[in-house]
Structures are given as C-alpha cells and as structure tokens.
C-alpha cells in the first residue's frame, strides 16, 4: 500500500501548484471562471513575439550545446583525454550556479567590461560605445553565452560517459572493415549515442525554455522571454494582469509537459531498437 501511494504523494505538490495556477488563470477569485484571460494572452502581440523568441533561444542553445558537447566528447575519446583533471575542468561550469555565470558574463562582455577595457587599452576602440553590444542585445548573445558555458560541458560529460560505456570493439570492427574515422563516429557511435543525446537535448531545452534569471538580467527590453513576461505581469497591480500571468505559466507548463511526453515515447522506441541491436554481436 505504501508503494502504491508513493507516486501520488510525490506528485501532490506539482498537482497542487498546477491546480492553483490553472484556477487563477481561469480568473477564479477575480472575475468568475472564464477563458478570456487565455484569449487575451493568445491575441496579444507581445505574447506571440515572446513565444517565438523563447522557443528560438531555447532551440539555438540546445542545438549548439548538444552538437558542441557531443563533438567535445568524441574528441576526448579520440585523444584519450578522459582523465581526472579534464573531468574537473568540465565539472566546474556544471556546478556553477546560473546566476554566478550571468554576473561573470556581464562583467566580461558588457560595454564597460573586461573585454571592452582590453580593446580600449590595445587601442581598438576609443570608448565604451564603440564596443559591440553583447549583453542586453536583441540577438540574445549574452543569454546564449551563459547557456553554452553551462551546457556544452554538461552534454560533453554525459556523452563521454555514455561513449565509454559502449564497447570499443564496435569501432575496431568498423575500422577493420575499412570505415573512415568519420564513418565510425557517425555510423556507429552516433546512433548508439542517440538516447543520451535525446535526454541531454530535452534537459537543455527545458532549462533554456523555462529559465527566468538569465533572460531577466541579460535580456533586451525589445522582446522578453515567456517567464520574464509572466513575471512582469505578475508584479503588475491590475488583477487581470495577474490572471494573464498565470495563463502564461499554464502555457509554459503545457509546452514543457508536451516535450516530456514526446521525449518519453521517443526514448522508449530508441532504447528498444538499441537493445535488440545490441544482442546480435
């Protein structure tokens, strides 16, 4: 009986939170149950801009960090550089809090930051305004730098462990049969790495999609990510804005949940394929 109730107890805080959020987004306590707050959000230009921007930032961060991380893992495997000290170097960005990385990125890349001062000292620029805007910029370069610094080492570490767990005999057999190193990597190891990459891609995407502090501190006022938009509506005193903020939260939760479902079904398929393949050699 204990075992049967455990998942429900574990899920209770989430369910409670979602119920309250959903209730508020429907206007409960403010104006009676209504869907008009959702419609107001969906019809708003700011929301559409926000949604597209948030999805793009998350997609680019995911793509670059997973390609970069996997490439780094392959390079480490090839160079046999998986030693203690390499892992420590990779662990550092992973354990650093996002907030700390955000502050560091700001101090390095701001127009009055370390790089700008260096450029001025070397005579490349005459003043801060000539240094390109790398934080608070509308291309989200500053935000991206934080995500990539945190995520590339994370993906690399996970992929490296996974690659090491795959028997090197597959690669040896391939090479024996005349495969180039590129073919060994893309035809043998990459398919075996797919479930791992699916997992890291989901984690990195979900984080970049739902993160608040990084875009809040380094973002441009031209567009805002959904969590920042939800926060600004939340601190707005208008009771309707409150409901719209909760509606955005529900939309963020729904998108994340949808991704998790897609992920779990794909992973089941992929790992199934992998297991049946794995028995042959």
């Amino acid at each position, binding site marked *: 009986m204990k075992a049967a109730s455990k998942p429900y107890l574990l899920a209770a805080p989430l369910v409670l939170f979602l119920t309250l959020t959903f209730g508020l987004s429907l206007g409960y306590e403010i104006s009676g149950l209504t869907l008009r707050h959702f419609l107001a959000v969906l019809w708003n230009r700011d929301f559409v801009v926000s949604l597209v921007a948030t999805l793009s930032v998350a997609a680019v961060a995911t793509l670059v960090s997973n390609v970069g991380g996997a490439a780094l893992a392959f390079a480490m495997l090839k160079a046999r550089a998986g030693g203690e000290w390499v892992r420590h170097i990779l662990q550092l960005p992973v354990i650093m809090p996002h907030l700390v990385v955000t502050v560091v990125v700001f101090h390095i890349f701001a127009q009055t930051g370390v790089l700008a001062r260096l450029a001025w000292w070397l005579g490349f620029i005459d003043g801060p305004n000539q240094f390109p805007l790398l934080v608070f910029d509308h291309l989200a370069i500053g935000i991206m730098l934080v995500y990539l610094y945190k995520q590339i080492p994370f993906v690399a570490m996970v992929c490296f462990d996974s690659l090491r767990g795959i028997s090197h005999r597959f690669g040896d057999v391939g090479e024996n049969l005349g495969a180039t190193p590129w073919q060994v990597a893309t035809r043998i190891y990459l398919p075996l790495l797919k479930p791992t990459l699916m997992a890291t891609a989901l984690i990195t995407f979900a984080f970049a999609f739902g993160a608040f502090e990084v875009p809040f501190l380094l973002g441009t*006022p031209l567009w805002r990510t959904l969590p920042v938009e939800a926060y600004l509506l939340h601190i707005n*005193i208008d009771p309707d804005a409150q409901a719209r903020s909760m509606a955005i939260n529900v939309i963020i939760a729904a998108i994340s949940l949808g991704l998790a479902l897609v992920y779990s079904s794909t992973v089941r398929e992929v790992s199934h394929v992998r297991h049946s393949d794995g028995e042959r050699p």
Partner: protein
Amino acid sequence: MTRRIIVGVLIAAMLVLTVGCASRNELTRGPDTFDAALRSARGKTVTFYGWGGSAAVNSWFDNVVAPSMLSEYGITLRRVPMNIDEILRKLSTERRANQTRGDMDVIWINGENFYTAKTQGLLYGPFNARIANFARHIDPDAPDTNYDFGVAIEGMSVPLGRAQLVFIADSARLDRFPTSAEQLLELARANPGRFTYPAPPDFTGSAFVRNIIYEIVGFEAINNAPVDKAAIKTVIQPALDFLNQLEPYLWEQGRTYPADVAALDRMFLEGQLLWSMSYTPLKAGQLIAQNRAPASLRTFVFDEGNIGNTHYVAIPFNSPNKDAAFVLIHHLISVAMQAAKLDVGNWGDLPVVDLERLDDAQRAVIAGVNIGQGVLPMSELLTKRLPEIHARKVAIIEELWREEVLRR
C-alpha cells in the same frame, strides 16, 4: 480503492487551501480620538508592512523609528518586508475570506496600488483627521494631501514622504545641463550615444517619459484626457514624436534602452553616459557620500518642473491594533522623524510637513539636516514640482511607448 481515497483527500485539501478558513469575528473598531488611541495602544505591538528593498529605508525604520516608538509610546514596532502587490493580494484574499483579524496594522502605499486598495475596500477609514500630527503639520490644501496620483484620498491615507524625478550629471564632464526637452535634444545631438533613459515599465523611465509629455503637451492636456488608449495617444502624439526625434542620438542609436534605472546608473558612473536620473531627489548626495561618484556631481531639473509623487501610509481594514497604528502614523510625521528621514545618511527622503506650520525651533531642526552635496535645495524642488497623473493612464502610456517608440 486506496488510490481513490488518496486522490479524494488531496482534492479536499486543495479546496480547503484555496477557499481558506473564514472567521466570523467582528472587525476591530478604530479609536474615536487620538487621545484614546494613545492610552489604549501602550504596551502593544504594531506591525508595519512595506517594500523592504532598500537598506537605507529599512535602517531608518529599524534604528530610528522603532527605538523612539518604544521609548516615547511604549509600542513595539515590527517591520515585515513585503512588496505592495503581495500585500494587496493578501489583503484581498482576507477580505474575500471574511478574515476580520489580519496581521498588518500599517502599510506603505501610493499610486495605482492605493487606487486598487481603496476601490476594493481594503483600507480602514477615513481616519487621517484623527491623527494629531496630521492636523498640526500637514497642509490640508496641498494637492498631495488630497490626491494621490490623481485619485481622491478622502481621509484614507496619510502622506509619509515626497519623491521627485531629478537628473544627475557630473559638472566636470558636462558644462551645460539640459533644463528643457529642447535643450536635451540639442545636447544629445552634440554628444551622440551619451544620453538615454531606462525603458518603461521601469518606474524611473516611465516617470521620465511622462515628464517629457508634460514638457511637450503640458500637464493639463494629459491630466484632462480620458482614460482611453486612443484618446491618450492623440493627446501625447507630439511627445511620442519628440522621443522618436531624440532616439537616433541616444545610446545604441535608441535601438534598445537600459532595462532599468540601475543599469542607467552603472553606465553613468562608469563614464559611458553623460547623465543619469533618479526618483530619489537626494541621490547625488548619497552617491558622493558613499564615494561612488566625485563631488563634482550635480542635480538639476527642467525649468518647467519635474514630476514628483508622494508616498503614504494607510491602515488595512482588518488591522488588529488600529490604536497602535494611529500612534505609529502620528510618530512617522513628527518633526523629529521627518528630519531624520531627510538626512542623507539615513534615507534622504523629502519631508511632508508644511514648514509654514512649524515653529522656529522645528524649522531649525529641518533646516539643520545634512542633505548632502550636489543636490538641489528643498525649496527649489518644491517650486519645480509637477503632480502625477491618474494611475490608470500610466500603464496606457507605457504601452504606447512600447508600440510607438521602442518598436517603431
């Protein structure tokens, strides 16, 4: 079966949490006279809820107000830092749940929040005429005694302090200060990329945009405009045009703006910008005193005046110690506390007491306060002070700025 029971219990728990517990007690009655409040409040604890984001403000409450409350009136002051939006949400939940004994005795409030609190019935009152120091020290005809951001006060709050938008520049780096919108445009043109302002809805940036509206179309025009987006747009169009005319000479050619006033300050202090602005009129004195800026820093306002607002204290409808709340508010607007609040070493917030109503000794106390270097004298700030417009228009103007200036 077990599953169903657990799910049932969870749903029940959620309903209980959502609805909250209702109590059927009567609301505490407020004291009929100030003397009655003084007598019954002794020995009680009064709870103050307000924004706790400024170390200077917190320290004034904890180290100046609280000890003197205890020694002079025998009342313990408890300060709970909480943002006003949360305070109001808590109060309106308590109102719906019919919770007649709340936790807050005095709240710190103004503007749009006061409008919301007053219209939703979250405040006790009218009460301000019963506060002894209100009758003694406050000018009953001053605009901010009667209107808070264009909302009629009707006895529901008492002014605590005054803020005003000021501009700050370094006289060592800028020899002529822009004292009108036209001069600002001229100066920005001569120094491209060295001026900008925080993007609304930042509080200070939003005030700056309104100040430009006052400059270009006048306070009366926007104050008389109805609370309607299309109507406001027509009225402020010349001001929006001016901001767009200014834009190419701003930082990053106005393609983007600093997200908040903290970012503006940093860029100014690091020499990237030639000016900064603040809704704390003695900000320059604070920066100099903290050694964050040179003593050549100067404060200035437009010749036609700068926007100012007043912040207030009010009593929630379900305050459990309304008598102690009376005494705290009385004490907050005493000459001693108002003078201590003005001191740049404490908070640096302008007093609300009317100097004409004070005797010579009291006036000397206020005049003797150290307001710091590089700031404007109180008399100049008060003569160049323009009122705020109705709180609901502020949000509409912020929206119009986003659409017509930022995204144009």
